[in-house]
């Protein structure tokens, strides 16, 4: 069975939980999106921008020194960090901005946490000559000041969000409020495999190029499939992008690495799958961090892009069905991951991706025979360097 089903559900997860004002638009978007899936012109256009503008395919790079350090694991890095704008986010924003154009929307809005999705959206909007406004929590604006500047350079208006926890969750609330208000002329580019149907499937399909390439590249290099896929999970778009093409390869184990923040038992983390309960946030049913009264908790992670109390519904489904395993590493461990990859391979990963990198040490310890693993290096660390100066040395 292909998921989601006709009503946008992945098992008990997913669906569409939004104010009535958005329902007709989502019906429209769903219709347009599914019709474009088989539209040759659209596919050609999307492929063109991915290749000529974003610089796909990205390399699948054998990290030899890192592999030697890990002993039992042979590690391939899927280099999404090499893409234009520095992270996998551009795959999705190029896809959605092309959908927006087909729907004749003249204004683009988006939420952003780390600023990577905001930059990628501002970039795609500039490329297509569309007006763009980005919602970003003021706390995130401080820790990702460079990305705020980049968005402004790209011509986007950055709207500071001061409500609630002032992070990604609240930025998404504000973006939805804007969307409800300006639904007629505005397209909301959601940055993760979250939100109301059809967003989780649309973002997944635009990011699926990561796994499609990686699978092909790995088969060519190793003449077999990998044993493990490892990716960090906040909302989960880079992980789902890598996992999706391997869904039917039963021998390939998928591991999503959540942010344990200051510890899974500390109440200051973003481990929505490991520590969440089923609930509804931002338009879909998934695993979310919530109180005993059903109020949404404030998440924490050193990586702004993982700092979210929910997760894409398809990940909740993967966990429940056992298709993927989910683990978590702390802020401190993620910093170690960042140093490890920087010094073993000369690649400075984003703090988000550093969660996936450092998990390899744990995986290596559990592994007795030699295994192959693909890690999604979802973004580069340049954006974090400023904030890291005080933390690492």
């Amino acid at each position, binding site marked *: 069975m292909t998921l989601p089903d006709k009503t946008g559900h992945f098992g008990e997860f997913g669906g569409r939980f939004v104010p009535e004002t958005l329902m007709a638009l989502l019906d429209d978007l769903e219709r347009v999106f599914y019709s474009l899936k088989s539209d040759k012109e659209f596919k050609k256009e999307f492929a063109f921008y991915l290749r000529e503008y974003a610089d796909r395919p990205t390399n699948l790079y054998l990290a030899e020194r890192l592999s030697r350090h890990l002993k039992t694991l042979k590690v391939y890095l899927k280099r999404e960090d090499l893409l234009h704008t520095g992270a996998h986010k551009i795959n999705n924003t190029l896809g959605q901005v092309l959908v927006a154009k087909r729907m004749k929307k003249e204004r683009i809005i988006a939420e952003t946490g780390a600023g990577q999705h905001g930059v990628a959206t501002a970039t795609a909007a500039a490329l297509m000559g569309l007006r763009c406004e980005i919602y970003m929590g003021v706390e995130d604006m401080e820790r990702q000041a460079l990305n705020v500047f980049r968005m402004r350079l790209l011509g986007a208006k950055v709207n500071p969000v001061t409500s*609630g926890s002032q992070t990604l969750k609240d930025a998404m609330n504000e973006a939805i409020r804007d969307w409800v208000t300006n639904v007629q002329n505005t397209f909301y580019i959601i940055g993760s495999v979250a939100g109301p149907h059809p967003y989780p499937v649309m973002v997944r399909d635009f990011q699926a190029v990561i796994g499609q390439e990686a699978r092909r590249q790995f088969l060519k290099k190793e003449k077999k499939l990998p044993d493990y896929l490892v990716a960090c999970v906040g909302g989960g778009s880079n992980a789902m992008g890598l996992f999706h093409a391997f869904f039917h390869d039963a021998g390939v184990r998928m591991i999503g690495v959540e942010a344990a923040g200051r510890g899974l038992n500390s109440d200051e983390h973003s481990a929505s799958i490991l520590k969440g309960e*089923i609930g509804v946030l931002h338009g879909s049913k998934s695993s*979310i961090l919530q109180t005993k009264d059903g109020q949404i908790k404030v998440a924490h992670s050193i990586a702004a892009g993982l700092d979210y109390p929910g997760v894409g519904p398809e990940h909740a489904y993967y966990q429940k069905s056992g298709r993927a395993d989910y683990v978590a590493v702390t802020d401190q461990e993620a910093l170690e991951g960042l140093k490890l990859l920087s010094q073993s391979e000369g690649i400075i990963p984003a703090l988000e991706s550093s969660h996936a990198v450092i998990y390899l040490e744990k995986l290596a310890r559990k592994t007795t025979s030699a295994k192959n693993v693909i890690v999604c290096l979802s973004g580069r660390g340049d954006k974090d360097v400023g904030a890291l100066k005080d933390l690492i040395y």
Partner: protein
Amino acid sequence: MNRIDKKFKELKERKKKAFIAFITAGDPNLKVTEQLVLAFEASGVDIVELGVPFSDPLADGPVIQASSQRALKQEVNLRKILDCVKRIRGKSQIPLALMTYYNPVFHYGEDQFVADAREAGVDGVIIPDLPPEESKNLIKGAKAQDLSTVFFISPTTTPERMKRVVNLSTGFIYYVSLTGVTGARNQLSPSITRQVEAARKLTDKPICVGFGVSSAEQVSSVSKSADGVIVGSAIINAIVRNTGKRDLVKNVSRFVARLACAV
């Protein structure tokens, strides 16, 4: 027939329209909420919507967002709100609907929620982020217990959707007067009358208009076509202006009475 249905039947017989007041339960505290509901009844309010505060109220503008935050600081939750309704029911039979986001209800357990709400004396539930498509279970439970499930139509609702929504909605139909979040507006959309008339062709159920309505003039103008008018943010603003004052309940009720007599 629950209190909401009875109220509309009675109003219809008297050829009157409903004035519906929204307040957030627990802002500034549940004691005041209880007093306000009782005072509203005496001020000519026909139905009260009690807002259940939520951490992420994405259909609400700044006024109700702030109100929810204040209520959450008081650690208000569904259980305490239902206890408050029970206390109100000791003194009043005014129709009461809970306006809540879906997650607190889902987390409480839909069936348990319906049973407890009904037992406490709640007559209806309005959930802005729960479209009919995702409501099957709630509708089934609510129907069995005669708890009204009020659904929305909006300026963007297509004719086909409108048919489905008005069929499923019970108690009344909530027409969202604008594309946007809750909060007072200086000017209301001129299309309200046309939209309400379009819905009326499809149903005999009462159609009430909310979002943006804040002044007596607006209440008066909207009630010409609608069966009821809902005011929220303007009343919350009146509560904020009077919070900390001894005459809070009296002053807010006087403000509400002026709106109520405009229908």
